[in-house]
């Protein structure tokens, strides 16, 4: 396989980790977050600093996950304190704040980012395999989560927080955990991205990325792991397969978002579900 294929596979794997982890927060637990890119960035920067300082790969990856998870936990407090609409706007704020902050930090390379990051030593192929393994693990974890009592309670909190409290579910703890878990996975993806590119700049983690991830979740079907994975693969590969699309990338993206929310709010998963139901009836 070519270097190009490995890099495509790596990007798909990273995007799957990001979208599936965002789906844990938004799809499973009902907490709207438009700042997922910031946690991904925090993980990437933490891992990059570790790698540059000479720490081994596992340490850097764990550092990425932990830093992002802690940050996510802190932002999660906003979800405890604020009503829904305020939370959406606050996480948008987190997104802009992260990029605006990093851009001005000299110890993080400011606008120029961090370059000459040591490689993982696995080569392009090894990196792609590592990333895909982590992506597979993320999917498996997401599927497990949805079946576990944690996922069960997440659904209750997403449906009706107040009602969840009346069946002894401490909704705030659940929301914090959803944020911590989802953002830690995003941070891990950030660490993998760092080893993949060996060069990071603040603008890779901005608001557009956060919106793109939310689009993958919504188009795939909020709450459906497989739907989100499918949407992620399609939306990541489409512009690569059809080169001309690249010029109209955002136009198509925005258009898809409008069409899906307008005509199929359940996303791909919703469409597939209603099709299979219709087939079964026929």
């Amino acid at each position, binding site marked *: 396989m070519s270097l190009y294929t490995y890099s495509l596979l790596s990007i798909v794997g990273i995007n799957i980790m990001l979208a599936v982890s965002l789906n844990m927060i938004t799809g499973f637990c009902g907490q709207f977050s438009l700042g997922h890119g910031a946690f991904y960035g925090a993980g990437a920067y933490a891992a990059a600093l570790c790698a540059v300082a000479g720490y081994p790969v596992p340490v850097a990856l764990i550092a990425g996950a932990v830093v992002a998870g802690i940050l996510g936990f802190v932002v999660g407090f906003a979800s405890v304190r604020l009503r*829904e609409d305020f939370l959406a*706007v606050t996480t948008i*704020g987190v997104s802009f704040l992260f990029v605006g902050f990093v851009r001005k930090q000299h110890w993080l390379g400011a606008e120029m980012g961090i370059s000459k990051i040591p490689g993982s030593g696995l080569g392009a192929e090894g990196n792609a395999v590592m990333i895909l393994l982590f992506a597979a693990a993320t999917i498996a974890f997401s599927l497990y989560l949805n079946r576990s009592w944690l996922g069960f309670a997440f659904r209750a909190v997403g449906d009706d927080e107040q009602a969840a409290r009346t069946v002894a579910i401490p909704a705030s703890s659940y929301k914090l955990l959803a944020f911590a878990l989802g953002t830690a996975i995003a941070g891990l993806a950030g660490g993998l991205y760092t080893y993949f590119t060996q060069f990071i700049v603040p603008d890779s983690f901005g608001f557009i990325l956060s919106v793109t991830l939310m*689009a993958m979740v919504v188009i795939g079907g909020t709450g459906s792991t497989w739907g989100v994975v499918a949407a992620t693969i399609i939306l990541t590969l489409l512009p690569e397969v059809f080169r001309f699309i690249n010029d109209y990338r955002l136009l198509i993206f925005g258009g898809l978002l*409008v069409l899906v929310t307008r005509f199929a709010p359940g996303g791909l998963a919703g469409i597939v579900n209603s099709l299979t139901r219709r087939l079964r009836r026929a």
Partner: protein
Amino acid sequence: MDPDPVYYVDLTLNGLIFGAMYALMAIGLTLVYGLLRILHIAHAAVYAFGAFITVIVANATGSIALGIVVAIVASALLGPAIYRLLYEPLLKHPPYVAMIASMGLLIFMEDGFRILFGEQGLTFTRNPYPTEIHQLFGVTINTVQIAMIVLSVVCLTALALFTTRTRVGVAWRATVSNPTIATSFGVDAIKVRYLNFMIGSALAALAGALIALLNNFVEPSMGFVVSYKALAIIVLGGLGSMRGTLIASLALGLVESFGTILVGSYLDRDALAFLFLIIVLMVRPQGLTGARA
């Protein structure tokens, strides 16, 4: 730092002017949110639309005033069309669905502007106003800035008078802050929705036109950051309150203006706005002026 007091007057004036533009933008969002509980992010696309129409018409006819009027009228039609075609069918879903759709529409329209008018956007062929400098009480100010102050004061005062002094206005405002009240006032709630989108969009177009004049150009992405800042403003203002929105707009203008000077080396202007938002929300979860739920 510059000890000259005029410098601070300058910063204050600049902050207030930006605040006034934010207010023109954000009033529309507040109106929509108050009535429909939708975060109408695509409002910024209407603002950019207004700016583009202004430049196109002004360049074609040679009259900037005509450009502004056409922009306002066209936007006042676009806003209600967005409501009718996009939001109305989504009202039965949870509010985040409409918000995502709105975000999609903003991205779609922005990229559409880029494809139609190019990455660089458009410039006025003849626009003398930003370079017409006046000295007022020792402060330097250009014609566009004066127009910004005068027009926003006129529009916001007219809106305030309309909503406090006329029967229709009072009913309208009551409906915005409590939609269920509409019927008891004998107001047609559906008409109020269209009115909201019309007035809000017209004000946004005016803001877009003025900003275009000030910068002497329009670019496809001009609405991008503004849209999210306007969201931050209506949240700061306590969501759904026009007075709160006005206060939050001016406060944000001032914070940005002074903050860029004071802490500009640690944070950029946009980050500063959201830092302000987050700090305020953590201290007062109900916003700057909102009452406790």
